[in-house]
Each structure stands twice: as C-alpha cells, then as structure tokens.
C-alpha cells in the first residue's frame, strides 16, 4: 500500500514536470507571436516595387506579394492583430460567462433565463450570428470583437454553471449560509476562488475559436478593414493572385495561423491537466 502511494506520487511529479516544460515551450512560442508582432513597424511591411512577387527565399522567408511587401512580417503582424482581437473578445466572453453563471446560481428564475439565452445562441449557426452582428455594427474591429464576445460564452457558462450547482450544495457553503454570510461574501470567498482555474482554462480555450472566427469573418469581408494586415485579409487578397501561381501567399500565413491556434489549444489543455491531474 505504502509502496503504491509512493510510486503514484513520483509518477505525478514527473508528469507535472513534463507539463510545466511543455507549458514553458508553449509560452515562449506565444511570446514570439505577441512580442514579435508588436515590434514590427511600418518599414518592414512597406511596399517595395523592386522586390515584388518573389517566392520564398532566405531574404524573404514567406516570399513577397504583388506590392513587394515582405509576407513574413505581414503574417507576424497579422497574428499579432488576431491575438489582440482574440484577447479582447475572449476576455469579454469570459466575463459574460462568469456573470451569467453566477446569476444562474442565484435562483431558478435566473437559471431558466440563462438556459433560454444559451439555447437561443446555440440555435443559430455561429457564423450566421457573427455576420449579422458585424453587419449591424457596420463591420470593423468593433463588429468582430462584439460579435465574438457575444457568441462564444455559452460553452464556458455551461461548465461554470454545473460547477457552481455542485458547490452550492457543499457543506461549507451551507454553513456559511447558516452563519448568515451575505451572497457577495460567499461569491468572493467560496465561489470565485474555486472556479478560478476553470475560468482561466476556459479563457485560454476561447482563444482558438475567437481567432478562427475572426479570420473567417474577416475573410468574408465583414471584419477588419483591408488596410490592416489581418490573416483573413491576406488570404482573401491572395485569392486574386492564385492564377498567377503565387501559392506562398496562401500557404505560409495559413500555416502560421494554425500554429498559433493549436498553441492556444495545447496551452489550455495543459493548464487543465495541471489544475486537475487525473
């Protein structure tokens, strides 16, 4: 028995170390995207007519476009832009999820209301809702951020709601109630600290969806404006140059986007494993 528990403990420690290493690797990748993107000035993505339509090479890793702009730097700043849009919208979405799940734990009327809201949002395809909201707000960054923030909270709300339901019946919460602690006190001292890990994981896992939807809606022409080097814009523009054989305009920006999205997905999953090891 003793031996068993020791071996269990060491195995846990090893997998934790591995997890931490993985997370560290992912974080450094993340820093390259985010910090790297913010250092890129106008001069790196300036049009340079003497260098146009070049394939990928050492000087221009991702090639150049029809205006001679370096695609590597354009892609990096596009990822940076995607990250910022994702950050804003995921943060708002998480906040909405937190507020709604707390509301639904308050009483059954609020709970019914929140359930109806979730059903309502899940009854329309996400992309259709996004197009509708972007159209109503006249496109642009605002339309994308508001649209993603308003459509991506249901899954996290469900998770948090279930968690809170369980917590409400816990003994210590019942005791606090009997002691006459206020609702706010219980939220601050019992509920929030307990759901914080879920909240963080949910927040990180919102990024992949947010970023993918941002690029999709931008690609369709409802999102960021054409002057901004968003990945959606880059890919939409590259469609016009497909017949000219400029495949690198499509391949590398798309691959970079996948890398960033997969990174967030892996980061969220690893954080989840760290918070609740099985």
């Amino acid at each position, binding site marked *: 028995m003793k031996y068993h528990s020791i071996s269990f403990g060491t195995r846990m420690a090893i997998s934790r170390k591995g997890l931490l290493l993985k997370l560290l690797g992912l974080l450094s990748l993340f820093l390259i995207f985010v910090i790297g993107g913010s250092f890129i000035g106008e001069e790196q993505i300036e049009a340079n007519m003497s260098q146009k339509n070049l394939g990928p090479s050492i000087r221009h890793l991702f090639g150049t476009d029809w205006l001679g702009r370096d695609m590597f730097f354009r892609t990096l700043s596009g990822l940076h832009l995607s990250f910022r849009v994702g950050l804003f919208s995921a943060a708002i979405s998480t906040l909405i999820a937190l507020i709604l799940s707390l509301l639904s734990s308050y009483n059954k009327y609020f709970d019914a209301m929140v359930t109806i809201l979730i059903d309502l949002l899940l009854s*329309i395809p996400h992309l259709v809702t996004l197009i509708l909201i972007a159209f109503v707000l006249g496109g642009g960054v605002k339309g994308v951020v508001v649209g993603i923030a308003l459509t991506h909270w249901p899954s996290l709300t469900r998770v948090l709601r279930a968690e809170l339901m369980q917590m409400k019946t816990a003994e210590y919460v019942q005791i606090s109630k009997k002691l006459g602690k206020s609702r706010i006190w219980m939220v601050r001292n019992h509920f929030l600290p307990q759901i914080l890990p879920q909240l963080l994981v949910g927040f990180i896992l919102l990024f992949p969806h947010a970023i993918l939807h941002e*690029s999709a809606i931008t690609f369709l022409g409802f999102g960021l404006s054409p002057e901004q080097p968003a990945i959606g814009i880059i890919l939409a523009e590259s469609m016009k140059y497909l017949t000219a054989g400029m495949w690198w305009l499509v391949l590398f920006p798309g691959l970079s986007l996948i890398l960033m999205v997969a990174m967030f997905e892996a980061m969220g999953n690893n954080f989840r494993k760290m918070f609740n090891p099985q």
Partner: protein
Amino acid sequence: MLAFHIGKFILKRTLKFVTLLFAVVVLTFMLVSLSPVDPIQSYLGAEMMVVSEEQKEEIAEYYGVNQPKLQQFFKWLKMFLQGDLGTSLVYRQDVLSIIQEKFVASFALMALSWSMAGILGYALGVIAGMNKGTFADRAIKLYCFVLASTPTFWIAILLLIVFSLWLGLFPIGLGTPIGVVSEQVTWLDRLKHILLPAATLSVIGVSNITLHTRQKVIDVLDSEFIRFARAKGEEGFTLFKRHVFRNTLFPAISVHFASFGELFGGAILAEQVFSYPGLGLAIVQAGLNSDVPLMMGIVVFSTFFVFIGNLLADVLYTMIDLRMKNGEAI
C-alpha cells in the same frame, strides 16, 4: 408505444422551437433596426441621386419606414406568418423563392460532405479506438487536433490550388460551367463543381465524429461482454462486427446530426472560396450589400436547419435508449 413516445417528444420539441424561433425573430429584428443602414438608400441603390426628396418621402411612407418600430415589427411578423419574407434587394426577387433555389444547391453540397465526413470519421474513430495507444491512434488524434485548429477557407484555397490549378482536375469555381444553358448542364458537370467544396467540408467535419467514436469504442471495449467475447477467442474485425459496431454506430450518427450548425457555417466559407451559388454565398452578398430581407430570411432558415439536425439527433437517442423505449423517462 415507441411511435407514441417519439411523437410526443417531437411535438414537445417543436413547441419549444416555435418559442425559440420567435425569440430569434424578435432579436434579429431588433438588431437590424439598430443598424446604421438607411433603408431608403439600400432600396434605391445607385438611383439615390436621381430620385427627388418627395419621392423618397413617398417610398418611406409606402413601406412604413417612419412608423414606430413596434408597429413595423408586427407588420413584418404578419407578413412572415403568411409566408411572405419580402423582396431581396440584391437579387430583386422574392426572398422565399431565392432561399428555395439556393438551398437546393447548398443541400446537395452539405448532404454530400456530411455523408462523406460521417463515413470517414466513423471509420477513423473505430480504427483509432480499436488500436488505442498505437501509432495509428496517435496519428489520427493528431490529425483531428490539427484539423480543429485549421480555418475551413484555408483548406478550401489549398484544395483549389492543388486540384484545380496545378492538376487541372476540377473547375475553379461556380456551380455549373460558364456559358452553358442551364438545361444542358449534365450531372457530371454538377458533380465536378461540387466535389472540391464538399471535400473541404468533409476534411474539416471529420474531427468531431472521429474523436467521439474513438471514445465510444474505447468505452465499449472496456466492458464486461467484450472481455467475455475475447475469452471466447473473438478478435479484430469479428469482434468489431459483432459487438462494437452496433454499440457505437447510432451514437456516432446522433452526434453527427447535432453538427448541422457547424456544417452550415463551413458551407458559407467553402461556398465563398469556390463561388458556389448556395445559401452561404447569398448571405454574404446580403450582408455586404445591406440586403436586410434576404439576411433575415436566411437567419430564420438556418435556425430551422439547425433545429432539424438537433431534433433528428435527439430522436435517434430516444430510439436507442432502452429506458426511453420503455417509457421510463423522456
């Protein structure tokens, strides 16, 4: 007995859907009313300059643009209930007939890709689940993970580059060949135009059903009766055919039905890349050209589409769950 329960279930869900649809309609109407788009301007389009102020007033009067929003909504609702969704500004046609026409094209695309993704996804899920922990399993899991992070339209563009531009196997876009009268378009032509967008949607759509089936197969393989079957010497395909297949097929189909929302979203993107003339292209056109009636029509229609998918998924579950069959719980 079973038919009765399913009938009751469908009725219940339909009633719930009607209230939900009403909420969607109210919300959409509110959103659209908030938009900065000037209805007169989007109605007139380029003729805005030619038409005099008095005429604009008359148009506004005729369509009730200046009436209170609530009154406008009830007027719209009344027409909606009579099956009149208004006239599209882009296509200058009745919205309902446009949706019908476009849906036929979209339906062909979605049905094809949905079935391909279902078959492929189920097969991959079974292979991964039956060989848990092996190289094949890890490769399939990695594929699903990467695909879940991949934008649909990017896959579409890649397929377009490789199969249409480099290999020249398929046409570059549209639903039918250019310059051919619609009566002369053959089935082969249509198939050629639909295959690439459908492949795009299938490649992406596989991920969800594969991972679900894999988990289900692993769960089934963990159970007592499998241990018994193994003790009798059943292995590999026989084991799958006799025990795993019937226990995992319906859950997989059910999950696949519940993915109609994502399918519709994916179709919008694939249709955009391939200029395939379906509902997805129509809603993008409606959005970019401020065609409010068409947009509202498609929003309502897509809600209906998702509802049908979810309903079928739930009915399947009702049918396979023995407790529900015996009427113990709904």
